Structures are given as C-alpha cells and as structure tokens.
C-alpha cells in the first residue's frame, strides 16, 4: 500500500523534474523511439534490409524509399532501422560489460585497499593511458574486425573509468559515518560491501553508464566507419556512413541519414544521462 503510493509519488516527481527540463524529456522520447526501432524493426521496416536489387541502385529519397537506396539497391530506411540493433546493441553490451567488470574490480580494490589496491590502480593507469581507439583498433586488427571484437576492445578501455568511479565511491562511502557505525557493530568488509557500499554507489555509476552509452554509440560507429567494427552486409550506422562516404557528392542521402541516426541516438542518451544526474543531485532535489 504505502510502497505503491510512494512509487506513484516518485513517478509524479520524475514527471515534475523532467517538465522542468524539457531537454530530458526529448532525450527520453528519443530513447523510447530507438528502443521501439530495435524491438519492432521487422514491423516498421518497409523492406528486407539485406535485399539486394541491382536495378534500384542509389535512388534518391522518395515515397517508396524514404531514405533512398544504396549502391546495390538496398532500402536505406530499412537499413537504418535495422542498424539500431547492431549499433545500440553493441553500445549497450560494451557499457554493460565494462560497468560490471569495472564495478567489481573497483569495489574490490577499494575494500581490500593496500598493495592490491595500488597494483590494480597502476594497472588501470596503464590501460587508461592506452589510446582507446588505438587499442580498439589494434585488438580488432589482431582478432579480426568484427563488431564483437571491437566491442571487446572498447569495453576493455572503458573499464578503468568504472573502476575509478566505483573505487572512489567505495572509498568515500567507507568514510561515511553509517559505514563506520556498521564497522563498530563488527560487520565484515563483505557485509559492508553488500549492504552499504553497493546500493549507495549504484546511482552515480548508473548515471555514468547512461552518459557513457552515448559516447560508446559514437565509438562503435567510428570503429565501423574505419572498417574495424560491424562488417558488411550488416546494417550498422557507422558502416553505412562509411559506405555512403564515397557517394557524398551525388548521393548525399546515403551517408546523411545513418549519421543523423547516430547523432540523435547519442543525444538521447546524453540528455537522459544529464537528466538523471540532475535528478539524483541532492542539491537540486529539495528545490
């Protein structure tokens, strides 16, 4: 009963906050749209995205092909819609993997402390100093270019950010009075991690992850653009821009629409991330 009330209250509160920041609403709308595209792609897409039609090459946007067609006559609108699956799916996996691994390492490092902590952090410094894109490219080159491999690479280079964040949270929470109190009751480090640190550290980490999602959509697309990510004929936005690139002069639509899709999706993630961060910000809360 009471719970239910507080949930509806919270929803109302969220609505109130987002009304105050219309941009967050825009972001949320974008994300919903993209989710819809991912789930309902077969229903929205007017054509099979991989259907080659050599007679319908490079047609301009029209009522039949909203975004035109590509050099082998595939419908670009359908490809952009299906592209959401590859592009966003990859980004989501990257963020998920790096977040889980990073939080695990970070909390462990923060709780254990001492030499182990130092060693872990130095290692993270090294990973952090690796130019992200280059490591991604090198790994992709080493393991063969594929969405999965470049995903793995990006995930690896993103781990340190989460490690630092989680460790920072752990360290600062460890100094919080309620955690100290728990220690005076004889709580084990594991108990403190389970009951106090993880639940309290999660919100900033989730905010970070949402913001990251936007960045990772860009990176995944960039890798595909350079030819190291998703491989043709997979419809992926970065790869689409890449193939559209050489047709820019005569067939501007080819590269333009998938690029717009990337931009808008990344904006959605960033806007929502910013919004959530503002909502969780205790300073803005009461007002």
């Amino acid at each position, binding site marked *: 009963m009471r719970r239910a009330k507080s949930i509806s209250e919270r929803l109302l509160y969220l609505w109130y906050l987002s009304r105050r920041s219309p941009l967050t609403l825009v972001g949320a709308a974008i994300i919903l749209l993209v989710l819809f595209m991912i789930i309902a792609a077969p229903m929205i897409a007017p054509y099979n995205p991989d259907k080659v039609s*050599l007679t319908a*090459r490079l047609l301009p946007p029209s009522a039949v092909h909203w975004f035109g067609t590509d050099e082998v006559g595939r419908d670009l609108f359908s490809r952009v819609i299906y592209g959401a699956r590859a592009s966003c799916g990859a980004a989501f996996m990257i963020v998920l993997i790096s977040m889980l691994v990073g939080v695990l390492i970070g909390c462990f490092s923060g709780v254990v402390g001492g030499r182990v902590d130092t060693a872990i952090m130095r290692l993270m410094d090294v990973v952090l100093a690796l130019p992200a894109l280059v490591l991604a490219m090198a790994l992709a080159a080493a393991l063969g270019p594929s969405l999965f491999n470049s995903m793995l690479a990006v995930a690896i280079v993103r781990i340190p950010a989460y490690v630092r964040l989680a460790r920072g949270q752990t360290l600062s929470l460890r100094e919080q009075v309620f955690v100290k109190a728990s220690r005076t009751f004889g709580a084990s480090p594991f108990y403190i991690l389970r009951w106090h640190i993880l639940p309290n550290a999660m919100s900033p980490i989730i905010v970070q992850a949402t913001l990251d999602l936007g960045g990772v959509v860009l990176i995944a697309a960039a890798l595909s653009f350079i030819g190291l990510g998703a491989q043709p004929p997979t419809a992926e936005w970065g790869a689409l821009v890449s193939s559209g*690139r*050489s047709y820019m002069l*005569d067939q501007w639509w080819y590269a333009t629409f998938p690029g717009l899709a990337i931009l808008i999706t990344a904006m959605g993630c960033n806007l929502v991330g910013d919004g959530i961060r503002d909502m969780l910000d205790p300073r803005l809360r009461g007002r």
Partner: protein
Amino acid sequence: AIAAQDVLVLARAEDPPTADPGVEISNSGYTLIYAAYERLVAYKGGSTEVGPELAESWTADDAGLVWTFKLASGHKFDDGAPVDAAAVKFSFDRLMKLKAGPSDAFPVLKEVEVVDPQTVKFHLTAPFAPFISTLAVSGAAIVNPKVMEHEKDGDMAKAWLAEHSAGSGPYRIASWERNQSIVLDRNEHYAGTKPALKQVVIRIVGDVSARRLQLTSGDADIIEQIPLDQAEALQKDASVVVESNPSMYVNYIYMNNRQPPLDDAKVRQAISYAVDYQGIIDGIMLGQAKQMRGAVPSGMWGHDPQGFQYTYDVEKAKALLAESGKSDIRLTYTFSQADPAWEPVGLALQASLAEIGVKLDLQAVADTTKRELVANGKFDMAPGAWTPDFADPYMFMNYWFDAGKMGGPGNRSFYDNAKVTELVQEAAAIVDEGKRKELYVEAQTLSTQDAPYLYIMEKNDIFARRAVVKGYVYNPMLIQVYNFGTMSKTE
C-alpha cells in the same frame, strides 16, 4: 587555381609506401619508380612486348642460361654519372641481397657479370622463358651505385631510397612530404627527349569526393581510384576524360579445393554455373568489366579466345549439384575491403547460390587476415584480385596452377592436378613462344573443366584526367604508371 602548364598534378588516395625498387611491390610506388628509373628493357608503347631501353641489344645462349646485354651509351643517372654495366650488376646484386618481394621475379638468377662497361652478362640456374619480360618490371630498375653512400646499418640504403630516387629516368624525386605530396622534377641528365612537363606533383587526397572536386576545378590533372558511379558522373564533364581501358586486373574467387564439399569438382562446377556473371558486370561494375575466359586474360598472349566459359545456368548447376550427391551445403565467403567489388560480388554470390540451395555466409576480415587465411588454406571461398608482374602467361598459369605454389605464392585454391602442373612447368622452361602457347592453352582447357576458381571478370582500369592532358599511353602492364616523360598539357 589551375596548375601551370608544365606542371602536372596527380591526385590519389594514398601515399606510396616506398620508392625503393628493391622493396616496393605496389603499383602506387611503381608510379615513382617508373618515372625515376630506367630498366634494361621496356614495354613497347601500349603493348605487352618488350623492347630496348638501357640495353641496346641482347643475345641468349642456346640453353637459355646466359644472356648478354649491350648497353646503349649516353644514359646518365640524375647526378650525371653514366649508366654502366657495374651499375646493372650493382642493382641486381642489391635486389637479390635485399631479397624482398621484387626479387621473386628472378627465381633463377645466379649471377650478373660485368664484361666491360657497356656489356653485362646474366647467368641463370635454369632456363626461364619469361626472363626478358621480367627485366621490364619495377624491381629491375637500374640504381646508381652511389646510393651506397646513404647506407645505414647495412640496409643497402633502403631507408634513403624509400623516399629518394637515384635513377636515370626522366624524373627524380625532388621532395616528399609524407601523406601530403611528392614532387618529381625533371632529371636534367635524362638521355631521352626532354619531357614537356617540368614537374609532376602527386598529391595525397584521401577522400574520393575531394579528388573529384579537385579535378573538375582544375586543381588536379589526373585523379585515380574513382568509384564507378563517380566515373559516370564525371563523364558528363566536357573538360574531363575518363580513361577506361581493359586491363589484366582480374577478379576471381578461390574455391578451396582441399576442403569438402569444394574438393568435389562437381560442386565447383555447379557453383560456376550458378553465378550471374553478366548481372555482376552490369549491376556492380556498371559494364566496366568483362567475364573471364580461362585463366589468362584477353590482353595477354596465351589467352584462348575459344576457351570454355561457364555461363549462368541454374538448371545445370542444380543438376551438377544433384550429381555430386552433396546437399545442405553451407560455405563461407571470406573477404576484405581491399577491393571495393568484393563485398557486392559476395552479396550477389550469396543471392545466386541461394538459388541452388547453397548457403553462403559472408565473413569480412582485415585484408592481412584474409591473406593469411588464404595462404594457410583456412577458407571455403575467398575473392582474389590478380595482376601480372611481367607480361607473360607464366604470371597466371604457373602461379595459379602449379601444385608447388600452393597457398600464398599463387595457387590459392590448392588445386592439385599433376597433368596441369606438368604442362605449366614445361611451358616455363622452354623458350619457343608458339610451343609455350600450345601448352598453356591445353593447361587452361584442363583446369577450366576442374573449375578450381570462379572466373569472374577482367576489370577495366579507370582513372580520369583533364582533357588538356595529352600524350598518355595506356599499357595494361603499367597500371597507375604514367609515361610522364612524353605527356604534356596543352589547351
């Protein structure tokens, strides 16, 4: 800004890796090497036959093991030093010592001997029919022995020659801003007629559209690597000429003869019948190609105009497949982006094979990875592109079918037919061209029946130049290589 009349600007996508004839193996580098160096022999005009260049005349002993060259006088390196027999010896010694890619054109070279300053002798370990042709390749360029002054850590001046030149060609490399531009200046000591172009500038312009815009605006005189669609668009511009010439650049697909079910010739034949060749040529190549007929392309002697050609015949393909007794075939097409046609061809192939019930998965990998997989036979089907290094059917027949050259060197479908191997080896060892041609035609007939490769197409070589650029002579052996020395710009 339109470049001056005596300066020719060439825009292309990438910097040549190096300009060292002893190392460089890409056409991109040949542009420089052919402009800066001379060889003993040269292709005659647009033909694949060779004629004198530094060598005035030559003779061979009966066994074909010793070749004697008489050097023409008057040829000078760009520092004024004469080109003599010692330089020839030096160049080949250096080539063989470096033993990088280019040296592979000389598998039987034993020794070069200086007889007198104008006479030089080549000793071979075995008769090698294409020998004279091989002397026209980039690696056979004659290098000024003085480059050894630039030697560092025993590298035979490799580092220096990577971006300088030391030859007797019409031009010399004046400056090289990596990834930006290369300036070729006239070699004042060049023995031939003084070139009309004072300077040739090669600009690196990565983006196709940018190259195209530079051509139409007159900033560039020649642009390379233009996609077919752009070529079509460019053709509409009156001030631009799109050069499209039949080349010996062939696109074919390796079928791994060692790997079931492709080890069965029936299956390979079925696949060969299932492909819509004309569809590919029209749809993907916009007609700028033609279907291959046997291994030797039409521009090369040894080509068999009556040779057997697979046609698009789904029924026959299905029947052959049924004969083979194989079903549920699932194959992988391993490709890279090195050639822009490979991906669409893969897609077309996928569609075609689906019609005969063969499922084809496309697997895209880095080009280096693809090469490695192919070299080690870890693939089902993979597209390949081939150009001859020297003008001899040897480049196709012996590389593609000799069971001793399996994997990387050339026989990438791991085709093993003892009879064919014997035929091509015999053809390589005799000098008589008529006899050789017979042997090669026979080998082609035999091998085409086995369908080790999918013979797709001979592509046209396409680049665009401004109409004011005159005097260009196309030679199918010299893709991306221009006769700058005899070209000019006139209104």
